[in-house]
């Protein structure tokens, strides 16, 4: 019967389309559940320890955003994100008071990043770094 032929043809088309649809649905689910490789590390940045005098801060770019390296008058070295946690302005290092001041809304941070006063809700994010052979490697 003509219908039989039509049915077989449609059956084949449907089988093919259904398999394609199932694959199209399964692929995103697989990718979604698959374990992710560790977040790509940002390129590390190197500084010579002598580049950073005591009581001074050095601003640079790290992972696409502003960052700062500080050597306190006590000699400790700290690497922080320089993006203010309030609304995103870049904080400035105040040599006189040895702390960070955000020019936008006067958020103030200690050299280790903790909030001293003003609107910032969180401390400045710390960035990992290592010191070896007179070199500071940030990242």
């Amino acid at each position, binding site marked *: 019967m003509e*219908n039989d032929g*039509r*049915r077989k043809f*449609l*059956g084949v*088309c*449907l089988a093919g*389309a*259904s398999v*394609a*649809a199932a694959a*199209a649905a399964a692929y995103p689910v697989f990718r979604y559940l698959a374990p992710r490789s560790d977040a790509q590390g940002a390129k590390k940045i190197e500084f010579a320890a002598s580049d950073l005098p005591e009581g001074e801060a050095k601003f640079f770019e790290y992972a*696409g*955003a*502003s960052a700062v390296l500080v050597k306190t008058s006590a000699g400790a070295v700290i690497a922080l994100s320089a*993006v203010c946690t309030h*609304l*995103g*302005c*870049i904080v400035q290092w105040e040599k006189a008071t040895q702390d960070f*001041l955000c*020019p*936008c*809304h*006067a958020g103030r941070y200690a050299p280790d990043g903790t909030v001293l006063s*003003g609107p910032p809700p969180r401390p400045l994010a710390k960035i990992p770094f290592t010191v070896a052979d007179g070199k500071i490697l940030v990242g």
Partner: protein
Amino acid sequence: MTDHRQTRRPYLRGALAALLLASCALFAAPQPARAAAPEQPETVCIQCHGTLPDRLGAPVKLWRTSIHSENGISCNACHGGDPKDAADAMNRARGFLGAPKETDIPAFCGRCHPGVMKDYLASAHGKKLGMGGPHCVTCHGNHQVVKASLDLINEKSCTRCHSFERARAIRDAMQQTEGYIVGIDRRIKGFQAEGVDTDRLGKGLFAVRNRFHTLFHDVDVARVKAESAQINVELGKLDRDLIVIEQARVKRKQAGGFAIAGALLLAVLFHLMKKTFD
């Protein structure tokens, strides 16, 4: 239709009518309509001054449409005092500052906006403070402070003291960059409304925008032009990031088109198959 059902009906109808009448009676004691009121309390400053007439109540109305109000910054943030206790709200011993004198205005605003204050005090405008020169309130207002834009530099405002030529020069120098910033802001907001994580981009734009607007307070055209170049480079970076997102979005839409076409194809095939059985 059959008799035993008919006799049961009046009871049910009666019960429903009683229910409706009872619910009417329940609200005989009028209850105040409960608006979807904000759960956070207003400062005592607003609670009191909001009810006062004329000069004492006007600032509240102005403040309500300000960017400070939008961000939860009330009277005590600038004027000091205790925002929760009406007794100490205007107590100088508790930090209340009152209204600043004209020469104290930049320091008043500069407590939270130090960057702008520094540029202003070093500028030609700042040097004329207290001698007929403009201060923060002159251009920005004091209570109805809105988000800063280039519109603040206009003929009506600037010609209060001098010709518009100088102001126009600065405004023209800032126009292109401002347009770029506004465009990027709009695109970021568009993406945020679609669920894109615009945190880094939004913060980056905010930082650039503030740096750019702060520039004006120096009222130095040469400096504006010089720094604008650097600012445009930063804006270009944000632009490129946005373009990457836009391209990903286009790809999604294309994939979506295929998916929808596939679903429609399945529908047609199923329908045709059904017809072979009819």
